[in-house]
C-alpha cells in the first residue's frame, strides 16, 4: 500500500487572499503540515497562511525553520515589526523571481521619458485627474507635496483633530502625537500588503519611480496611490476618538478600509497599469539566451510567485 502523496503546494494569487494577520506572541511552527502559533500555555492556533497576503510578527514571536519554509511555499510574506507596526525586516518569496519583469522595471526607471510617464500615471490614479502638462518629475513632486499637506489639513478639520504637521521620527515613538502615531501604524499596514503584492507580481521593491534610494522605494510609490482613499482617513478618524490603544484600533479599521475599497483585487493590476504607462514592451529574452532546461510549471498564483 503506497503512501498517498499530497500535491505540491502552490501560492494563490494576491486577490484571493485576506490582507494581514498580526501575531503578537507565541512560537510559530508546523504541526501536521499546518501553520500553527503555539503560546506558552500550549494553546494552538492554526493560521491559514495560504490565504493571507502578509503575516506581521510582533515582538514576542519565534519562528521555526519549517514555518518559514511553509510560508515561502504558499507565498505569504513574513514581516517582522517593532513597536506600533514599524517594519524591521521582511522575508517571503524573495523578489526578483522573474528576470523579464525586473529588467522591464529597471528599463522604465532608467529611461527619463518612460519614468515621467509612469510618475504621471501614478499621480493621475492617486488624485483622479491628469497632472498638469510639461512638468518634470521634480515639479510634480512639489505639486504633490502641497496637495498632501492640504489633504492632511482637510482631514484634520473634517474629523476635528488637532494637527500640526507630519512627523516621521520613529526613533522617539511615544513622543509623537496621537494623529501621527495613528498615521504611522496605518501606513505600516498598507506597506506590508504593497510589498507582498510587488513581490508577487515579480518586481523589485527597491526600484522606485517617485521615491528613490530606499530598499522599499517602489513600495512607497504604490502605497501612495491607495493611501488617501484607505489608511489616511482611517488614521484621522481613529485619532479623533482619542483611543486608549490607537495602534490596535487603527489596524481593525484599516482592514475594513481594505475590504471596502477591494484593495487586494486592485493592487496587482494597478502595478501593471502604472508600469504599462511607460510605453515600453516587456523585454524578450535575447537571441543567444540558453533556453530553460526545466520548463516552469503553471501555477495558480501571480506572475512572480515561485510556484
Amino acid at each position: 500500500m503506497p503512501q498517498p502523496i499530497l500535491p505540491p503546494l502552490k501560492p494563490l494569487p494576491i486577490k484571493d487572499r485576506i490582507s494581514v494577520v498580526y501575531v503578537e506572541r507565541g512560537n510559530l511552527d508546523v504541526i501536521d503540515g499546518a501553520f500553527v502559533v503555539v503560546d506558552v500555555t500550549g494553546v494552538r492556533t492554526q493560521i491559514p497562511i495560504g490565504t493571507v497576503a502578509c503575516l506581521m510578527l510582533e515582538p514576542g514571536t519565534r519562528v521555526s525553520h519549517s514555518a518559514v519554509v511553509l510560508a515561502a511555499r504558499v507565498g505569504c510574506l513574513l514581516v517582522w515589526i517593532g513597536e506600533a507596526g514599524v517594519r524591521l525586516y521582511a522575508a517571503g518569496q524573495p523578489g526578483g523571481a522573474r528576470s523579464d519583469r525586473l529588467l522591464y522595471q529597471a528599463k522604465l526607471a532608467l529611461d527619463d521619458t518612460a519614468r515621467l510617464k509612469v510618475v504621471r500615471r501614478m499621480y493621475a490614479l492617486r488624485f483622479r485627474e491628469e497632472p498638469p502638462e510639461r512638468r518634470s518629475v521634480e515639479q510634480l513632486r512639489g505639486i504633490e507635496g502641497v496637495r498632501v499637506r492640504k489633504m492632511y489639513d482637510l482631514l484634520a478639520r473634517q474629523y476635528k483633530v488637532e494637527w500640526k504637521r507630519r512627523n516621521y521620527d520613529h526613533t522617539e515613538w511615544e513622543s509623537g502625537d496621537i494623529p501621527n502615531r495613528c498615521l504611522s501604524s496605518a501606513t505600516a499596514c498598507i506597506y506590508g500588503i504593497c510589498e507582498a503584492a510587488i513581490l508577487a507580481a515579480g518586481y523589485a521593491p527597491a526600484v522606485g519611480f517617485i521615491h528613490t534610494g530606499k530598499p522599499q522605494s517602489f513600495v512607497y510609490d504604490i502605497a501612495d496611490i491607495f493611501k488617501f482613499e484607505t489608511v489616511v482617513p482611517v488614521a484621522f478618524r481613529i485619532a479623533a476618538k482619542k483611543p486608549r490603544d490607537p495602534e490596535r484600533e487603527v489596524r481593525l479599521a484599516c482592514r475594513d478600509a481594505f475590504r471596502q475599497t477591494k484593495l487586494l483585487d486592485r493592487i496587482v493590476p494597478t502595478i501593471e497599469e502604472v508600469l504599462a504607462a511607460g510605453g515600453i514592451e516587456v523585454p524578450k529574452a535575447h537571441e543567444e539566451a540558453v533556453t530553460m532546461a526545466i520548463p516552469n510549471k503553471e501555477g495558480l498564483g501571480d506572475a512572480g510567485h515561485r510556484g
Partner: protein
Amino acid sequence: MLVIVVENVPPRLRGRLGLWLVEVRAGVYVGDVSKRVRAMIWDNIEKGIDEGNAVMAWSTNTESGFDFLTLGANRRIPVEMDGIQLVSFLPPQEEGVAKPPL
C-alpha cells in the same frame, strides 16, 4: 462560502486544509475561496484522502443556493431529485459500509 467536512483522513491532509481554511470543529473547515482555489483544494483531498471520506459544500447560483461534492464511503449518499441535490441515509449494514454509487 465553502464548507468541508472530513472524517477519518490522515493528519497531514487535515493540516493541509488548515493552510487555506479555518477548522471550526474537528474535521469541519470553513472559508471563502475562488472556483480555481476550490478545485485545487478538492484535488488535495482526492490525493490525500486515504481510507477516509469527505464532503465539500459551497455557495453557488443554484436554486438551493449551494452545491456539494462527496468522496469516500459514507452512509449518507447524495441523491438528485429532479435537479435538487438531497442526501439519503443508508441503513446500517452488517458487513462493512455501503459503497456510494459511482
